[in-house]
């Protein structure tokens, strides 16, 4: 049982100060911009909720949001089942476990722009391993600077390459926490391997999988560097995801008001989806 003790606040104070400094002040700056118009020189005019209305109605925002939702949907649909399948197929003990884990975790530790650059080099149509194989060996016309489909296929393959290991690590952590007795009981009952998965492994993995889905949702929804380095949002606008569009508006065109309004809507969408998912998944616990 935990002690009721307001001293807890004292312990949390450093974290509170650091995070508040980093989160609240910038957030207030964004809110401030989102309701004002500026022509530079530190001159600001009250604008009310006009920017929000403008962003919510603009087709550009709808397009970026739609592409973002599609991207996040696809990578979740691929990475979560794939990660679970790989985790299930991994050895539970022995010397190979460490080797597998180290090699699998490697992509997670590569700086994001290096991931983009690496995939760029990998997929160059004439001299990249993947690009050359597709174009010359297999005879498939592949050039992601020309075809939106190729660009999409590449950024999704890249994200699967980059992040599936996180799902594997989490799912694996869930699987190895299941006591052997459960499997023995299932064996005595003559349970099929599907039944073992459905009634023993999946429930035990529920918590870590919730974390995996949440982390992948948040991180993929905020993705910027990798697709920016790889495709620059192109060809055309076809891979301009939310963050890329936002940076274009804020730093490229310096439209601070609309960019700030867009930021807040973006943040709110992320929060809402995460909260809904978390609440639904945790409903039957406690």
């Amino acid at each position: 049982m935990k002690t009721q003790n307001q001293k807890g606040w004292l312990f949390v104070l450093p974290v509170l100060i650091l995070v508040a400094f980093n989160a609240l002040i910038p957030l207030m700056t964004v809110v401030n911009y989102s309701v004002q118009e500026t022509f530079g020189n530190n001159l600001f005019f009250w604008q009310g909720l006009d920017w929000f209305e403008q962003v919510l109605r603009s087709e550009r925002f709808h397009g970026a949001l739609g592409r973002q939702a599609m991207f996040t949907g696809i990578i979740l649909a691929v990475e979560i089942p794939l990660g679970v399948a790989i985790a299930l197929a991994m050895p539970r003990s022995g010397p190979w476990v460490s080797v597998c884990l180290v090699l699998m975790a490697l992509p997670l530790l590569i700086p994001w722009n290096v991931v983009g650059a690496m995939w760029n080099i990998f997929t160059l149509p004439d001299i990249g391993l993947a690009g050359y194989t597709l174009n010359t060996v297999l005879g498939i016309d592949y050039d992601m600077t020309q075809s939106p489909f190729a660009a999409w296929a590449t950024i999704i393959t890249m994200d699967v390459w980059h992040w599936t290991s996180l799902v594997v690590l989490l799912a694996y952590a869930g699987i190895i926490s299941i006591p052997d007795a459960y499997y023995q009981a299932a064996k005595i009952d003559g349970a099929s391997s599907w039944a073992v998965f459905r009634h023993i492994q999946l429930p035990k993995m529920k918590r870590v999988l919730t974390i995996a889905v949440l982390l992948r949702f948040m991180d993929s929804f905020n993705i910027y560097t990798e697709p920016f380095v790889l495709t620059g949002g192109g060809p055309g606008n076809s891979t301009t995801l939310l963050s890329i569009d936002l940076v274009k508006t804020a730093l490229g065109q310096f439209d601070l008001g609309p960019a700030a309004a867009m930021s807040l809507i973006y943040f709110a969408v992320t929060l809402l989806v995460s909260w809904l998912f978390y609440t639904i998944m945790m409903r039957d616990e406690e």
Partner: protein
Amino acid sequence: MKLRALVPIIYILFLMLPIYWLVAMSLKTTNEILGGFSLFPQKWTLESYRTIFTDPSWYWGYINSIAYVSLNTVISLAAALPAAYAFSRYTFLGDKHLFFWLLTNRMAPAAVFALPFFQLYSSVGIFDTYLAVALAHCLFNIPLAVWILEGFMSGVPKELDETAYVDGYSFPAFFIKIFVPTIKAGIGVAAFFCFMFSWVELLLAKTLTAVAAKPIAAVMTKTSSSAGFELGLLAAAGVLTIIPGAIVIYFVRNYIAKGFALGRV
């Protein structure tokens, strides 16, 4: 049964392919790269690596990155340790809300914060310092560190604390001499994740630095755009960014899987 063993192997091969290509590219001469496709380097050269290790604008990028990543790991852990202790041992007014609010900071898109961060850190006069990047990365690393450490601390029975008080330890002495060594595995895992997320992040690191504290990742983007087609050099720089992560992961390999399993949320 054999088929099952193949799954991780195929997956790892898929993971290694682009990495192999990067390493192969870094060992080729520029002429060979531009000359056409070749699966293995025909003429091995370490020229790209030599350039990086002799040119200060390159190797300082690595030093800068390692400096702010280490600083961030230290700050994150120092702040997260007492907070995680409080969450695992005490209930206090608003603790659950505070915990969830901390986690929401991980959801903030870095692109949203880039410009306000630039203004904030310029106005307090620490723009282009290691401290600026290290503090900015606390935004997403502290919540993660608190979460992981809290999981490990909750696994330590409360009797440990009580016995130490009976033995006459003051709280700080108990915390440093007894409690911290007990959860050193958890601290290792938390440090690993702080290192990882600070090391791979570029958008904020690039926004908050100009010259003095410029990270290696930013040096790379600049070189690739200004010097045109120096793929070999870019590849070599990329290979070198993988190495620190690989070293760190080797040390914590037995704990990574455990770290998340124990966390609550």
